[in-house]
């Protein structure tokens, strides 16, 4: 450590004002503060001590909360791959395939995103912010395993530049950056990110006879046409190609279904939610709001007489299919793009849940509603805050007149 510290101190003057690498000061500073917490002390007047927490630690907490989803996702990529091929495989084999498919996406996401962050930090002379540590992990987790890496790079670049830096960097963005990347892909390259793209099937490889890569959401949406009972469709799914019970409620909850790398397991998301809530880093109000809103909306749709098959699906299924849990726990709770007031967080969460179910059920063209619901509510979050803040101001005014 001593050696590292000494070499940093030795190199530092080059980057300081007047040094020959002055331009790159913030890149150096980012590296230095990553290795060593800075030696800055509190000011002359005011708080003389500061809390041990900082933004880096906060962001690391979120990343650690995502690890269960990531590990399960890696295994599931392999699991789905061998299911589709109709081959038996060991745990290690499955995990290995997942590792091979996932790690490059993570590397590309961090490489491109952090690269852009550093360039902007140098150009605009501000410190490198920690926000991307989380975004860089979120992006791979909401990609299909088989996505072309160049698309990951393009989407990441778009999201970081247009979604964040154009607004002034971390803390200033309006919409969630990871979801911006996903939305960009969806609208720019729809064929690569919708339909039966979720399972990694190498070219020229024969899938097992009768194979279907339809996601539960697609199965449910197609039930609208066929007027079949969604739950029995789920329970029958996979029977023809040796993957019986793949969409049973318990499998869906556990996450052994095709989907984005990290979003399939409700159980793992709940473990993440537990970490976020216990550490106080994620808002439990938002998480509870999304789950509650989706469930209640599902119940309301159940009650409508003569509704289609998807509307008749038991409400609790909404909580385990698609990316609802992942979105609720990791996307909706992004403190920058969510509402800033505690009361507002309830409205924000509940509306995301409600909208997700509405989009799923009434817009079968794009069955996954959580992404659009969160992006939409990101845009409306300031409006919700506006009402909450206005109420606070009003209380103060009323007090004055009585």
């Amino acid at each position: 450590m001593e050696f590292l510290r000494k070499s940093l101190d030795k190199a530092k003057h080059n980057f300081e004002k007047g040094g020959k690498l002055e331009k790159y000061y913030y890149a150096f500073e980012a590296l230095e503060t990553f290795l060593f917490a800075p030696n800055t002390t509190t000011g002359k007047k005011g708080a003389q001590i500061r809390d041990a927490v900082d933004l880096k630690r906060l962001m690391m907490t979120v990343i650690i909360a995502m690890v269960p989803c990531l590990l399960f996702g890696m295994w599931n990529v392999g699991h789905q791959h061998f299911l589709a091929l109709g081959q038996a495989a060991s745990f290690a084999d499955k995990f290995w395939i997942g590792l091979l498919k996932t790690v490059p996406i993570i590397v590309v996401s961090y490489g491109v995103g952090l690269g852009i962050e550093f360039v902007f930090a140098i150009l605009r002379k501000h410190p490198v912010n920690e926000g991307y540590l989380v975004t860089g992990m979120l992006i791979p987790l909401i990609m299909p395993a088989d996505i072309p890496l160049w698309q990951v790079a393009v989407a990441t670049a778009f999201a970081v530049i247009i979604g964040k830096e154009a607004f002034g960097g971390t803390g200033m963005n309006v919409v969630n950056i990871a979801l911006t990347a996903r939305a960009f892909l969806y609208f720019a390259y729809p064929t690569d990110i919708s339909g039966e793209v979720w399972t990694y099937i190498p070219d020229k490889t024969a899938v097992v006879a009768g194979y279907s890569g339809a996601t539960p959401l697609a199965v449910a949406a197609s039930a609208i046409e066929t007027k079949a009972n969604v739950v029995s469709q789920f329970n029958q799914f996979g029977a023809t190609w040796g993957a019986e019970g793949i969409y049973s409620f318990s499998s869906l909850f556990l996450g052994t279904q095709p989907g984005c790398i990290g979003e399939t397991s409700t159980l793992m998301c709940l473990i993440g939610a537990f970490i976020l809530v216990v550490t106080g880093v994620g808002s439990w109000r938002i998480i509870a709001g999304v789950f509650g809103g989706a469930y209640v909306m599902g119940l309301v749709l159940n009650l409508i007489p003569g509704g289609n098959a998807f509307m008749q699906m038991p409400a609790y299924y909404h909580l385990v299919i698609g990316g609802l849990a992942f979105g609720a726990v990791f996307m909706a709770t992004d403190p920058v793009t969510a509402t800033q007031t505690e009361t507002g967080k309830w409205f924000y969460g509940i509306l995301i849940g409600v909208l997700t179910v509405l989009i799923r059920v009434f817009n079968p063209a794009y069955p996954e509603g959580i992404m659009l619901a969160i992006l939409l509510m990101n845009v409306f979050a300031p409006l919700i805050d506006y009402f909450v803040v206005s109420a606070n101001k009003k209380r103060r005014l009323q007090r004055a007149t009585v």
Partner: protein
Amino acid sequence: MGKFIREKRGFTIKLAGKAAATIKEPEMPETVALKPTDFQGLYLAKALVKEGDAVKAGTPLFHDKRQEAVLFTSPVSGEVVEVKRGEKRKLLEIKVLADRQVEYEAFKKYSVSDIMAMNATEAKEQLMRSGVWTNLVQRPFGIVADPAATPKAIHISAFDTHPLAPDYNILFKGQEAHFQAGIEVLKKLTSGAVHVNVHNAHEIPGTFSQAKGVELNKFAGTHPIGCVGVQIHHIDPINKGDIVWTINPAGVIQIGKLFLNGVYDATRLIAVTGSEVKNPQYYKTVTGASVKRMLENNLHSDHVRVISGNVLTGENIGREGHLGFFDHQLTVLPEGDHHEFLGWIKPAGDRKPSFSRAIGLLNFLSPNKEYKVDTNTHGEPRAFVQSGVFEKVTPMDILPTHLLKSILAQDIDEMEALGIYEVIEEDLALCEFVDVSKHNVQEIIREGIELIRES
């Protein structure tokens, strides 16, 4: 009947180095200083003495050019040894070399019945001339009270919840008569009530519980419930156009002594605290005393920060500095100017206090531990990212994040609507401590107040 208010929001920072309940009476400090910078809202402090002048306790040292009747007087008798000025000849500090035996300026002496019969004009005149007036702080803005104003109430916080705060049971023991006389004087200055606010769970000093003619309000909760601004918010909030005064019990007692004894008596007890002090205990000294003698052979190490006041709102005065006018506490902490390898993720366990429970911070598991904390900022300034934390340590119906943002945007209407009139620095000092993005919250609040005063 007073009110009873219970609050759950807030956070107690437990630090090592609490003052033992013993009182040391050292000889007079060598020097005593009065600093115009301790008082907010002065237009231009003008010195009334020059170096070499002999002064008594109660002799004017300076006044504000826009409010010449309010005098800031010497706490002790002696010789003016330094009139310290900063940029643009701004008056920073007037230092007096203290006599061994204090000589007092003579002010008019009153009996208890005289005090009852006296009118407000006469009271104000004596208060302003003697220098005791400067104990009165005006809300909004936390400035020296304006003698022309009549406040709607006067609030006295009779307990201190800051980290390592002195125990008011020790500080104001046996001062019943002086406190009561002070209250009688204060009652003449306001159109409303004089509120004495005590903590429900603490032992209430007789000085306060026996006070007559006051509203005795009880509070339950943790810091910042001891901040008078928070108390006012719950008892009788400040709206636009309202004027409220606040005063520390020490000031009330000083008023009592002025009227009963006819002197400006600046003696006070202070708590010398902090993990770097060998014998943390109480000291009998005077307002603005030099801290040099209190710290001689009394420190564990050399690399320390000496803070007049507490760790949340205090000021770094250095080892030879002087106590602030309003401070009853001296805190000595280790300096934190060191790098920490991977400090941003290294598990801190319960070595560092934190309001957060983010990964590696486990001190919420040991709630009674007393911490040795240094002055490191533990991170660099960032944009506002986390939300909802300020609200948890602000026991008021105020949205601190929105208020701070409105100040940064210099939006005066918005600041007003969001409650700038109700807060001063100390009320939101905990926000500065807990802030993940390391903003200087108190500095921002003062900027906002200055903006509003100028508008």
